[in-house]
């Protein structure tokens, strides 16, 4: 069953880079705020003709009706506009927050918001048999350069435990 989730730019961009965005819709009904959309689709003035792949992907899924625009009633005054809206939306509606940036993630956790990061989502994909062991390991490897070593080690260990249980790993 799909869970309602508020999307933060940090999650979308990194999930898009490693290629797991299409799997999101099997698990989550994704809501975005206008501020988040603006961050995802905006390029620098000197790069105007560029369209980042994550921005293109966002536009395609939005036109496809899989991304739902929802605004919070009272955006959190802390942090930047996108985060403030994404965190507040999750908090106000008791939704999951999809986020992949350390500081706002910690802040959201202190507010009692349940957060899901890209590595966590990759482990879920393997646990629910959406992807192979090799794919799960490949995704986590791609995240390793910008994710804390301890978190990656725990993610890999979890994947390995599931693989051992399934007999895919000795």
């Amino acid at each position: 069953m799909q869970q309602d989730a508020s999307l933060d730019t940090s999650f979308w961009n990194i999930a898009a880079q490693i290629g797991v965005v299409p799997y999101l819709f099997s698990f989550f009904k994704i809501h975005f705020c206008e501020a988040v959309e603006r961050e995802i689709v905006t390029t620098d003035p000197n790069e105007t003709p560029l369209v980042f792949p994550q921005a293109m992907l966002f536009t395609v899924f939005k036109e496809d009706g899989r991304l739902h625009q929802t605004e919070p009633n009272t955006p959190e005054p802390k942090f930047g506009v996108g985060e403030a809206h994404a965190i507040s939306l999750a908090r106000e509606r008791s939704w999951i927050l999809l986020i992949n940036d350390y500081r706002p993630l910690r802040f959201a956790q202190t507010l009692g918001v349940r957060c899901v990061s890209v590595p966590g989502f990759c482990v879920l994909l393997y646990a629910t048999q959406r992807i192979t062991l090799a794919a799960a390991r490949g995704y986590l490897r791609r995240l390793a350069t910008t994710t804390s070593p301890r978190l990656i080690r725990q993610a890999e260990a979890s994947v390995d435990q599931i693989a051992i249980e399934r007999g895919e790993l000795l």
Partner: protein
Amino acid sequence: MTVRMVTKSVRFLPEESEELANLSKASSLSESALMKELILEGIRLKKLELAIHAYMERKTDLRGGAVMAGISFNRFLREIQARNIVVLENEDFLGELAFLAETFDSQSLRAAVERVRTSDQEDR
């Protein structure tokens, strides 16, 4: 609307001045135009450097860093990734996985988290 330009003066050592003159000739730009180009590029790089430093010290987040650097979120994230700077830490990552296991009723994930948690505690 007319923009009022501001003059800033800089004092160079003779060898620095000569180097600037040589660069000016080589790039077919007046010394003044070249200096302006170099300073603007320097400002851009300095802002980016300060923003990256602030991000590394966890004084700001990706969004705040982008604002400090005067660039888009996407561009700042690329700069951070190019330098292999950690964007994600979560002291309770196993808690996140346990939450996912409960939410999506995954027995195998639930069991895996328990085993990793036990193994982590034994390692300490």
